[in-house]
């Protein structure tokens, strides 16, 4: 029965870089306008936080199979800063051989020299936030780059030697047509990325984009159009050799994101930096999101954790279900049984029956997965498991 215990698994390490050149109109993540002084203070605190975890965690807990630097815009930092983060991580943690080391980058914040430096420092995966190949839509989104700069950045990443490249795109943008979307997808596959992530635009309350939609300045994309864009993308990318492996994610064979898979398999991870979330030793907790509070706490030698909660086993099961159902393959029922010593089919008998009856989920080859019908209605499925 002890075949699978998540705490025995290597950890994922996430590092949040809370800076951007300019906040995008749709973004409600934690980020600050980039200032050299702040960045320096941030790096100092981050290294100190790493060091304290380095001494607090056990050897087993320090084994890291994926490192992900996200933001914000990590590439706001000079390449040397990012390299220093990686060096410190290697110093305080045990980066396992073959460790996936990703850095997020935005076109307009990278240049050939910087990219080469990152490659040299040991980053082996680059995730580019391209979002769209229409300048018109990039302006709606409030991105700082143009479509041409995006293509350029992808080519430069290749030239710098990155052989594992992810491109992020957004659909359902106000004003976006099916034609725009197909053009974006076509240009995307022409760059031969190993991985593609497609996000349906969420109008988050309080963001400039949400306000201009609410105020009537721009018209939100219709539900039907958004759905058709999603379904188009699935078909299009499949035809171009990409495997749809998670609701929003597509990869060439063997190129799935190790780091993100950890989230969906409900495995432990450690998050460092302001606003970073962790799931460790049965607790979920997160750091202060304000840079100021984060710096203060770390400066005082204190834990910068703002809040956290213990995850009882019932909740762990529920999270395992709704996170795992994001994977196209679904929740591995055998693994669930080994992890909890209980069968998901029994724990969620009624929920599963109801959803099966509605044709939203099915069991296939030992996995509980969303059906084709259930895929665009995933939230309705997830709700049953909370």
């Amino acid at each position, binding site marked *: 029965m002890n075949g699978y215990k998540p705490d025995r698994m290597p950890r994922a390490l996430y590092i949040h870089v809370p800076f951007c050149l300019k906040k995008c109109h749709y973004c409600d993540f934690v980020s600050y306008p980039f200032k050299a002084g702040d960045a320096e203070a941030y790096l100092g605190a981050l290294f100190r936080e790493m060091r304290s975890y380095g001494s607090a965690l056990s050897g087993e807990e320090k084994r890291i199979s994926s490192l992900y630097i996200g933001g914000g815009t990590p590439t706001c930092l000079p390449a040397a800063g990012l390299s220093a983060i990686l060096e410190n991580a290697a110093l305080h943690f045990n980066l396992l051989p073959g460790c996936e080391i990703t850095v997020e980058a935005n076109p307009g914040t990278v240049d050939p020299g910087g990219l080469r430096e990152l490659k040299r420092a040991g980053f082996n995966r680059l995730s580019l936030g391209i979002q769209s190949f229409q300048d018109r839509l990039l302006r709606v989104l409030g991105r700082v780059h143009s479509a041409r700069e995006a293509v350029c950045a992808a080519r430069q990443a290749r030239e710098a030697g990155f052989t594992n490249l992810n491109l992020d795109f957004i659909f359902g943008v106000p004003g976006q047509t099916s034609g725009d979307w197909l053009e974006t997808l076509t240009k995307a596959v022409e760059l031969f990325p190993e991985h593609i992530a497609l996000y*349906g635009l969420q109008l988050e309350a309080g963001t400039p984009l949400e306000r201009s939609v609410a105020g009537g300045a721009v018209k939100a994309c219709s*539900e*039907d159009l958004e759905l058709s864009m999603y379904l188009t993308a699935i078909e299009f990318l499949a035809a171009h050799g990409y495997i749809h492996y998670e609701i929003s994610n597509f990869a060439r064979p063997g190129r799935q994101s190790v780091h993100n898979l950890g*989230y969906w398999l409900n495995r432990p991870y450690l*998050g460092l930096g302001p606003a970073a*979330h962790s799931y460790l030793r049965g607790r979920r907790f997160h750091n202060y999101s304000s840079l100021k509070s984060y710096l203060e706490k770390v400066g005082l030698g204190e834990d910068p954790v703002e809040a956290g909660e213990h995850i009882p086993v019932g909740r762990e099961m529920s999270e395992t279900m709704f996170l795992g159902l994001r994977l196209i393959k679904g929740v591995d029922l055998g693994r669930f049984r080994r992890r909890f010593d209980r069968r998901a089919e029994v724990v969620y008998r009624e929920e599963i029956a109801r959803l099966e009856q*509605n044709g939203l989920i099915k069991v296939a080859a030992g996995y509980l997965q969303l059906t084709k019908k259930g895929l*665009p209605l995933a939230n309705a499925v997830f709700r049953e498991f909370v």
Partner: protein
Amino acid sequence: MKWDKNRIRNFCIIAHIDHGKSTLADRLLEYTGTLSGREMTDQVLDQMDLERERGITIKMQAVRLNYSARDGRDYQLNLIDTPGHVDFSYEVSRSLAACEGALLVVDAVQGIEAQTLANVYLALEHNLEIIPVINKIDLPSANPERVKKEIEDVIGLDASEAVLTSAKEGTGVEEILERIVTVVPPPGGQAGAPLRALIFDSHYDPYKGAIAYIRVVDGSVSSGMQIKMLVTGKEFEVNEVGIFRPSLVSIGELRTGEVGFIAASIKNVKDCRVGDTVTGARKPATEPLPGYRRATPMVYCGLYPVETAGYEDLKEALAKLKLNDASLTDEPETSEALGFGFRCGFLGLLHMEIVQERLEREYGLSLITTAPNVVYHVVTTAGEMIEIENPSAMPPAGKIEFIEEPYVKATFMVPKEYVGPVMELCQDRRGVFTNMEYMSVKRVMMNYDMPLSEIIYDFFDQLKSRTKGYASLDYELAGYRQAKLVKLDVMIAGEVLDALSVIVHRDKAYHRGRQLVEKLRGLIPRHLFEIPIQAAVGNKIIARETVRAVRKDVLAKCYGGDVTRKRKLLEKQKEGKKRMKQVGNVEIPQEAFMAVLSVSEK
């Protein structure tokens, strides 16, 4: 003070809402030293929070004032407060029956309103001496002369000696007290005869049981005495006899003409019904006092707990409310859509709203209320008459010979420029015009015969908005009349939702059905499947709307490791669904069940 029947004056105050009745009552209490200024909270006599908020009297109160008059003698003045709403007109009639005089308080700006008029007529029927009082003379737009003329023209009372007051400023209070002493006759009755006392109100006290508010008409009552209720035949031993100051103060005895209370370990307010006669058990009177009528509910609605588990709480809360409210009725009822609940009967719409509000506020219940309806008389083809209190109990059309519905005689008073809008509204509501009179050059009184069901459905709001709040309305029941009525059913996803069935006039069924399904389309959230909403009369679908299916519901954005946020979002969505009522596969929010009521006119 020694009992002397000639030194007793029993009176009440007749006034329209907002004309200053409560403030005037407070001034009388203050002036006679019944309460010191320190003890005065605003409007002492309106004790319930709800009464204060709405500025109306729901539960009656009574109070004894001792007044040393200008003639050098001391008088016992009993002020009996009357509820100020048409729902409680029977209670009003009983409190009038306990008095010999009434202050008719009219606002010096507004003039007479329909409610006032109705109560004045009631007072005249009871041979009460009426003292006109024109209040709020301090207001700059006060026009006492016009109001005097209105009183003379409309009611036919001599208003030349009307007392001019400002209850707010306390002017004219002594003048009123003097007039009560000189104009209102002392009570009649025979001190030596067997006890006869009129119950004009009651309230439930958790320690003393039901407390009867009485006016002794003949004889006397004292503690220790065996009494008998003439209508119910129940007997009790009196534990306590007292008066209202305005809190209850024990005295040993109440004698002929006096007003006070008795407590006799009466377990239920239903055993001391308003209008019943209290007499001695040993030497009973033979004739009850006239005018007893059992309070009958005029309006019914279904009350259901939002969560099935709340049924017991609702049952208990209703039982507690009934301790204090003899006119509230409840019968357990089962709805296919809403589960277990109660069909409750009320004196009127206000009474219904008050009960609902108290259940939610004082008992913390979360309720689904179905639209109110009146009681229909259905004569079947077999010649049998059935009373229908719940539209879903209506027999199939083929078994109905005819249906009768209750009518009211409605009296409107409006400034003349609103005559048109009121007529239009009444015609639209199947009203039959009977009379119209000019009360003055500016104000008009109109009479209509109308179905009660039309008045309980969005009528007051319409009247208010069409007359900018200047119209007043009073009505009294005027028997049943045949009408071409049909049952309008609502089907959601093909299933009849019994709680939404309404009985409407045949000519209005299409219009109402259309409004209803449109309204419901906006209220029922989208589901994973398409939901047809249909209105039907018998087997005939008369209107249809569709709630489109949700096609996309997926959080595609990946929140880094913020699983907690994602879970909370899912939990919140799920919680929202829980507050809805699951009917078949469809989740229906509470508001939908009241949709029948609030569909707008235009």
